[in-house]
C-alpha cells in the first residue's frame, strides 16, 4: 500500500530523482539534463502525493493521467516512474540504449506507466485535453496533469489547445508551465519572448496560479487549489531553474542537451548528496 509522502520526504524524493537523472544521462552520454532537473520537484509532488496511480494496477481506467509535453525531460519522468515502482531503477542506466525500453523520449507502448508518447513539442497539451474530455464524456473523475516548457509555448498548437481546454471547461486538467527561462539557442526572452505567460493564459480563459517551482509545499498547495477550481482549466506557472541542484549546470543553456563527463558526474552527485536525499 502506497503512503503519500510528506513535504520533507518529497524534498528527499526530488533529490533522488535528480540523482537518477544525472546518473542516467551520464551512463547514456546523451540526453537532456537541464530541463529534466527543473521539473523534479513538480514530479515528486505529482507521483508521490497527488496522483492516483498504482504500478500494480497500471490499466485502471480511473487512474490519473500524466502527459510530459516537454518530452525531452524524459530522464526525470523515467526516474519518477522507477522510484514509484513502475519498473526497476537499474533500467535507468540503460537509458537510450538499443537493448532498453527507455527511449530517448517517452513512448506509451514501450514504457510501463507512460500514458502518452511525446517528444515533438507543442502536442502534449492537446493529448491531455483529449484525456480530460474522455473523462468528462465517461463521467469519470480522474484528473489529467501535463507539464510543458516555457520555450514550448512558442509552438502555436499550445494555444490551439489552450482554447480547447477553456472551451470545453476542462476543470479536471492541470497544466504546469516549467518557466526555466532557457531554451536550446539561449534565453527564451531573446529567442522568442513568450512573456507575459500568466496574462496570456488568463486571456485564454484559464485560472492561473503562480508558484516557485522548487517549493514543494507551494506546488502541492497549488495542485490542491486547482482541484477545487471549477468550470475552467488551471495552469500553474512555475518559476524554475534549469539544471536545478547542480552548481555548474544551473541557468546554463548549454546543459539543455549535453551529458556530463566523469569528473562533472562526480561533482554533480556530490552537489546533490550535500543537499539531502539518500
Amino acid at each position: 500500500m502506497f503512503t503519500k509522502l510528506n513535504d520533507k520526504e518529497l524534498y528527499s524524493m526530488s533529490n533522488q530523482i535528480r540523482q537518477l537523472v544525472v546518473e542516467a544521462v551520464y551512463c547514456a552520454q546523451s540526453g537532456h539534463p537541464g530541463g529534466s532537473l527543473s521539473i523534479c520537484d513538480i514530479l515528486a509532488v505529482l507521483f508521490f502525493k497527488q496522483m492516483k496511480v498504482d504500478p500494480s494496477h497500471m490499466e485502471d481506467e480511473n487512474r490519473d493521467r500524466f502527459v510530459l509535453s516537454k518530452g525531452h525531460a524524459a530522464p526525470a519522468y523515467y526516474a519518477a516512474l522507477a522510484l514509484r515502482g513502475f519498473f526497476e531503477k537499474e533500467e535507468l542506466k540503460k537509458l537510450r540504449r538499443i537493448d532498453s525500453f527507455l527511449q530517448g523520449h517517452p513512448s506509451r507502448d514501450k514504457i510501463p506507466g507512460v500514458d502518452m508518447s511525446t517528444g515533438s513539442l507543442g502536442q502534449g497539451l492537446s493529448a491531455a485535453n483529449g484525456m480530460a474530455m474522455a473523462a468528462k464524456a465517461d463521467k469519470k473523475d480522474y484528473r489529467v496533469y501535463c507539464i510543458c516548457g516555457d520555450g514550448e509555448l512558442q509552438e502555436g498548437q499550445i494555444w490551439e489547445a489552450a482554447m480547447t481546454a477553456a472551451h470545453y471547461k476542462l476543470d479536471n486538467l492541470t497544466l504546469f508551465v516549467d518557466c526555466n527561462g532557457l531554451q536550446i539557442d539561449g534565453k527564451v526572452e531573446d529567442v522568442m519572448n513568450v512573456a507575459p505567460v500568466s496574462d496570456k493564459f488568463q486571456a485564454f480563459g484559464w485560472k492561473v496560479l503562480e508558484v516557485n517551482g522548487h517549493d514543494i509545499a507551494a506546488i502541492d498547495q497549488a495542485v490542491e487549489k486547482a482541484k477545487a477550481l471549477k468550470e475552467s482549466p488551471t495552469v500553474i506557472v512555475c518559476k524554475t531553474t534549469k539544471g536545478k541542484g547542480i552548481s555548474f549546470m544551473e541557468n546554463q543553456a548549454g546543459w539543455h542537451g549535453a551529458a556530463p563527463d566523469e569528473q562533472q558526474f562526480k561533482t554533480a552527485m556530490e552537489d546533490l548528496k550535500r543537499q539531502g536525499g539518500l
Partner: protein
Amino acid sequence: MGNLSTREAYGKSLAEFGKKYDFFVLDADLAKATQTLVFQKEFPNRFFNMGISEGDMMTTAAGMAACGKTVFASTFAMFAAGRAYEQIRNSIAYPNLHVIIGATHSGVLIGEDGASHQCIEDISLMRTIPNMTVIVPCDEKSVYAAVEAAICHDGPVYIRMGRLAAETVYQEKPEFAIGKGNVLKDGTDLTIAAVGDLVPEALKAAAVLEEKGVSTAVLDLACVKPIDEELIKKYARKTGKIITAEDHNVIGGLGSAVSEIIAQEGTARMQRVGIKDCFGRSGTRETLQDYFKLNVAGILEAYERL
C-alpha cells in the same frame, strides 16, 4: 447521377454505426462539408467540434484514444494528411492509437476550389507512416464497409474520400477486409487496378477494351496499405500488363504501391494513370477529368503505351 458522394456516405455510416459501436467523432469546423454533422445530430454528446485547428484535433483524438476510445477525426484531406501530418505521425501512429482519420475532399476532382484544396499527396504521405492503414473507398457501399472495418481494426486508419457524387460500383456492401483487394471483373490480357473515382472509369475502360478483344481484369485496391500483394502478383503473372488509376499524384500513390511489388517480381509491364506530378486547378469535375485524363480516355491511352 443521383448517387451519394463518398463523404455523404461517410456521414450516414457514422450515424448508423454509432448505434452499434461506441466511438467519438471530432471535426475542425467542416462538419457540414465532411458530413460528420449527420452523426452530430444523432449523438451530440459524442461529437466535438475542435474549431479550425487540425493539429490540435489530431492530438486531442490521440489523447482520447489513449484512454481506450475509438475516435474519428475528420477534415479535408489537405488539412489532415497535409497540415496535421506530424501530429498524425507522432501522436497517433507512433503510439499506435485507434484514431480513424476520415479525410474528405481529396484529389483534383473536388472541382472548383482549385489546387490549394486539391490534395494529391495524401496517399503517399499516409502510407509511408509505420502502423498506418490506408483505405480509399469508391462508392457508398464501400464506404460503409471501410468505416466498419476501421472501427473493428485496432490502430490508426486513414480513410480517403471525395466530394462529388460517386458512381455506384457495389449494389450491396462488399466483403471488405483490411489487406485484401476485390476482383470486380476477371480477364487474361490486361489488369486495371484502381481506387476511388477511377474505379468506375476502369470498369468502363475495360468494357471498351473487351469490345476490341482485350480480356481485361479490374481490381478495386481500396486497401492501399497494407496492399494485397498476393492478388497483384497473381494478376501480374496472369495478364502481364497492369495499369493503375487514381486521382492522386502518380508519385507515391497507388501506382507507386503497385510498382513496388511489380519491380520486385518483374512479371508485368506497367503504366500509371494519375496526376503527373503537377498541382491541380479549378474547373468542373468533367473538365478536370478531361484535363488530367482521369477517365476512360486516359486509361485507353495508357494501354496504348504498354
